[in-house]
């Protein structure tokens, strides 16, 4: 059965032109396959270190713990708990992503013990002063972009599809993203972001992939470089854990108030 699937996928991807698929259909097919391969993980936990550097080399560090719950037929639910900088320790961010509707987001401010429902329109804004925008870190649903297959290209030791994707949401900070997806595992290798004026903005590089549960790939390092400001952000992921038995209850307003 697996073999048949694999053969089908290979047929779909490689023989697209033979079957008369347009570049748009090819791009979508690649996105769907990548999404399918990452479906079924259930839940995950991970520790994140963000290293921010400006063009003068000044560094600033953030520690965040992330919990994610896969939701059938909708976007993921996620909880981010901030440990450093120390003045924001205990701050927590709860997000319900949706495939097409705007996301639901709540912020917990520990000094006041206040849960605030916040607007999710801030897609292009910086996450914690880093070079990652909220939209770069939120759950990557197929429906959030339209696609176009460009070409095949060598990427490191692998072969990649080069696919352009165009954000559907007009609030996105990008006109387009060019993604290199490796042909074997359908993992992102590199993404180049173009701003609203279609000028080169950022490059995101994924390295040190690890496989979990014999199936799901996660990059230990994600390096974002802003070509316009010279600032960089390195995300280092540690202690990925899958199958934690997390439920909806771990992603509600009550759990947000308790998050530590």
């Amino acid at each position: 059965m697996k073999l048949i699937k694999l053969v089908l996928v290979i047929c779909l991807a490689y023989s697209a032109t033979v079957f008369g698929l347009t570049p748009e259909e090819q791009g979508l097919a690649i996105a769907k396959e990548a999404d399918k391969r990452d479906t079924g993980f259930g839940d995950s936990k991970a520790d994140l270190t963000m290293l921010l550097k400006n063009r003068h080399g000044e560094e600033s560090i953030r520690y965040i713990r992330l919990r994610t719950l896969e939701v059938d037929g909708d976007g993921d639910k996620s909880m981010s708990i901030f440990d450093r900088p120390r003045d924001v320790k205990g701050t927590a961010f709860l997000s319900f992503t949706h495939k097409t509707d705007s996301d639901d987001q709540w912020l917990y401010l520990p000094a006041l013990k206040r849960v605030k429902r916040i607007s999710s329109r801030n897609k292009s804004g910086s996450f914690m002063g880093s070079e990652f925008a909220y939209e770069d870190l939120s759950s990557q649903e197929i429906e959030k972009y339209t696609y176009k297959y460009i070409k095949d290209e060598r990427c490191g030791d692998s072969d990649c599809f080069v696919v352009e994707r165009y954000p559907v949401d007009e609030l996105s900070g990008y006109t387009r993203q060019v993604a290199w997806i490796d042909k074997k595992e359908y993992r992102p290798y590199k993404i180049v972001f173009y701003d609203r004026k279609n000028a080169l903005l950022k490059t995101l590089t994924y390295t040190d992939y690890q496989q979990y549960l014999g199936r799901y790939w996660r990059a230990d390092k994600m390096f974002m470089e802003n070509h316009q400001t010279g600032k960089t952000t390195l995300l280092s992921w540690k202690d990925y854990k899958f199958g934690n038995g997390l439920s909806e209850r771990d992603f509600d307003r009550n759990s947000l108030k308790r998050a530590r």
Partner: protein
Amino acid sequence: MRLRLLFALSCLSCSISLHAAEGEWSGYLAGEWKAFLSAPLSDEQHGDTTSMSAQAEYYKSWNNRKQSFRFTPFLRIDGRDNQRSHFDVRELNWTTVHDSWELTAGIGKVFWGVTESQHLVDIINQTDLVESIDGEEKLGQAMLKFSLVQDWGNVDLFILPGFRERTFPSRQGRLRTAAAVAVNQAEYGSSHGRDNVDAAIRWTKTLGDWDVGVSHFSGTSREPRFKPALDKGRTVLIPIYDTIDQTALELQATKDDWLWKLEMVSRSGFGNRYTAATGGFEYTLYGIADSGIDLGLIAEYLYDDRNKSATTPFEDDIFLGARLAFNDAASSELLAGIIMDLDDSSRVMSIEASRRLGDSWKINLEGRFFSNIDRQNSLLSFDKDDFVQIELAWYF
């Protein structure tokens, strides 16, 4: 008081004895310098002042975060006002979490509400007024809190023993009532006095873009009335804590860039039954002029149907505010606002700004300015208390 101590000790001892494994400490130490821009109304009141504050938090969880223990002591030492110097246990509680319910026992802090200019609905904790006149600093409250988590919403039930009196500046303090408050002479509406056990219930639910809360509080009012009296030849204000019933509504609609907010309370037992409300919006412009800076515009109307006989200065007032979030590595922020009385044109302006310095330091600037205060407005006693304040905090 005894009950509160019992609560605290029992939860402290059980969690420490059974689970004397490693927890974690965090917190801050801060120094504050406050400069007043005018001479005080009364010669007795002090001038510029410095003070120190510290807060620590011990947190420990076990059984896969299903149980946790928290201890948060707070201390302020003020250079000029001995009543502003105080120690408080903000939190000392144990929480157990289950699929459909949670229980917290001990001293805790709870926030209710959605609006920015004032917090009408927030009633569980007493205001630590000497910390700030904005009413956002709270004293720890002994509580048994039972939360039910269901599809039809969350219900929180509170039993609140051990009433806390509001803190007030001393006769030498600034930002006080025209006559100082005689904090040792508080009177109570209930025959049980401060030992009256209060109760509250709150239902909350998220319905799509709407967040709704309905609550009822029955017990000792956190807000006192005042009765003038003579104490050693001086006029003082004696705080009277009535027994009240307060029903409240909180609403927020999150519609794209617009947050629409409403808080409403109806209170009886505090003079005649009255209704007060705060409502308005916050509209955010994200990434203004391609800068990455967000600008939030806030407008709220503050209403109280007691009009000029209200115990608050905000009975027919409008709040206009602007919030700038720079979204930079230092998390720089600025909030400026003005509350204007629509009847007598009294104005309170405030500005708050903060940014991180390095990894562990933070600087906070605050200023409050009272202008055009009408002789009938209860803010009159603050008229000469315009101030700017710098706080430098070190976090650990």
